[in-house]
């Protein structure tokens, strides 16, 4: 395969041309669309998923209860489908938050180099704490609730975003068109938003996709451990946590939300890989031996 070296602006036309070829990315996009549809429609269409029915406790999957029931007699099918919204919301919000904050800090640190040393050491410090651990600690301190969970998961994701954006900006800053813009006296804000940011968007989007996937896993870990989730809105992690003591006799409580969760995260990661291949031609290299 020919070596393509595109260090300049992302060629939108080339991206569009390459789009039809990548079947995996399209399938992934389709699956994500199905998940979004499920998240929007299922709370409106499905019946009651909160109230307790002792007569139908721990029933295996059947025609009435497609995914079986939990120890309170609630349908796993309904709870799993309704839980989709929770995971997607957390994933999207964390990705957005981490991109905005991390991207902003990275842009400033990389372009102006003011306080860069302090910022990067702060980021090193944050990265020295394992991200799941930091999220657990933050979520437990800030109390239960969706906002808390989103903040707790977003904070550990910020340093990686800052580092990425900073390195992209440092490289872009040396590009002839940026040097030209600086030398004719373009205002820094205009250089940042008109020249640097549009060329960093590709890297940001790819990283945001990965952040979204890892945020969905972290959310499920938090609610699996019983941290941060609220009892009323079902989350895949908490459905599995309920199933923990019963799983030798009723594995469906863990199986179904587990499959939904794994497929979603896998899909988003594949989508990220597809985006990366489209937006960063340098990584599309093959080698021969």
């Amino acid at each position, binding site marked *: *395969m020919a070596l393509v070296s595109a260090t300049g602006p992302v060629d939108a036309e080339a991206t569009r041309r390459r789009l039809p070829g990548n079947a995996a990315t399209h399938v992934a996009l389709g699956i994500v669309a199905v998940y979004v549809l499920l998240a929007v429609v299922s709370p409106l269409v499905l019946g009651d998923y909160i109230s307790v029915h002792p007569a139908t406790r721990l029933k295996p999957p059947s025609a009435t209860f497609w995914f079986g029931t939990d120890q309170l007699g609630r349908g796993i099918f309904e709870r799993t489908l309704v839980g989709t919204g929770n995971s997607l919301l957390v994933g999207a919000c964390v990705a957005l938050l981490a991109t905005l904050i991390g991207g902003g800090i990275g842009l400033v640190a990389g372009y102006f180099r003011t306080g860069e040393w302090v910022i990067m*050491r*702060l980021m*090193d*410090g*944050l*990265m*020295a*704490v*394992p*991200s*799941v*651990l*930091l999220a*657990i*600690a*933050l979520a*437990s*301190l*800030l*109390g239960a609730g969706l906002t808390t969970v989103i903040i707790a998961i977003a904070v550990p994701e910020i340093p990686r975003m800052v580092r990425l954006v900073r390195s992209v900006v440092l490289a872009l800053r040396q590009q002839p068109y940026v040097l030209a813009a600086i030398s004719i006296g373009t205002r820094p804000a205009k250089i940042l938003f008109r020249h640097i940011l549009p060329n960093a968007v590709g890297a940001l989007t790819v990283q945001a996709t990965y952040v979204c*996937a890892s945020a969905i*896993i972290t959310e*499920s*870990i938090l609610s*699996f*451990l*019983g*941290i941060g989730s609220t009892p009323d809105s079902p989350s895949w992690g908490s459905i*599995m946590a309920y199933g923990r003591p019963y*799983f*030798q006799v009723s*594995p469906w409580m*863990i*199986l179904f939300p*587990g*499959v939904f*969760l*794994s497929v979603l*995260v*896998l899909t988003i*990661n*594949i989508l990220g*890989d597809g985006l990366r291949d489209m937006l960063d031609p340098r990584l599309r*290299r*093959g*080698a*021969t*031996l």
Partner: protein
Amino acid sequence: MLRYVGLRLLSTIPVLAFVLLLAFFLLHLAPGDPAALIAGDSATPAQVEAIRAQLHLNEPLSTQLWIWLIDLAHFDLGRSVFSNLPVTQLIAQRFEPTLMLAISTTILAVLLAVPLGVIAAYRARTGIDRGVIVLAVAGYSVPVFVIGYCLIFVFAVQLHWLPVQGYKPLAEGLGGTLRSLVLPTVALALLYVGLIARVTRATMLEVLDEDYIRTARAKGALTLRVLCIHALKNAGPPIVTVIGIGFASLIGGVVVTETVFNIPGLGRLTAEAVLRRDYPLVQGMLLTFAVMLVAINLVVDLTYPLFDPRIRY
């Protein structure tokens, strides 16, 4: 070499200082009265007061920080609010299972991932390559507790080959320990395999493009020798780096794995500490894990000259 280690240790000071401050201020980030937060809803005012006194929360913030740092310098991380045992003792007690799990996971992951990555790069753009990539993405996409429960269900509940949960300490014999580690190790290693295999593949692809590989091929060196001696050795530093970076996610995974497999290690201790709002213990765990990560990154840096003699410290 010693000079490098010294400088490298100095450079970790800002990072560790930040982690210290983070651990210290964590409790104060929470809204409301920290002592009431730790004591929980069912505590009497006297209990809240006792906790406040134990943690010096009635002193000014600067005094609190000073006391905490002085204690830390004496390796005193305070006492657990829940069990009233010293935090250092609790951590020491729970260290063995986690260490064993981390070692076995790293060994298994490297043994699986490096050959997979090398083969994928050697057979780039073939079915084998695509298979390895899919496996790698699946490895870090499927959450460790989903894999863990699947493994328990198949190999312990259905086939009865391995124990369902729990950990046998080394003192009761190596065989039992290894048996109890098999399933958690596999569950945890899959995540790690994904990370390492990807980086191995990517780095090998780059190295295989180099002139000296063509030279080696031209002089008739065996494929295996070219791959392992000429290529893999030069691909070493990024691979070792990702093994170090992956350790951070390994620690996150340990918390969950130990919960799924009911292993009384540091991860379980952390989850318990957080759920019980055992604040001194949470602080101690944050510090322990941060120091471990910093130490591992230092070791990773020191291995670079093994792969590339041009790097000298």
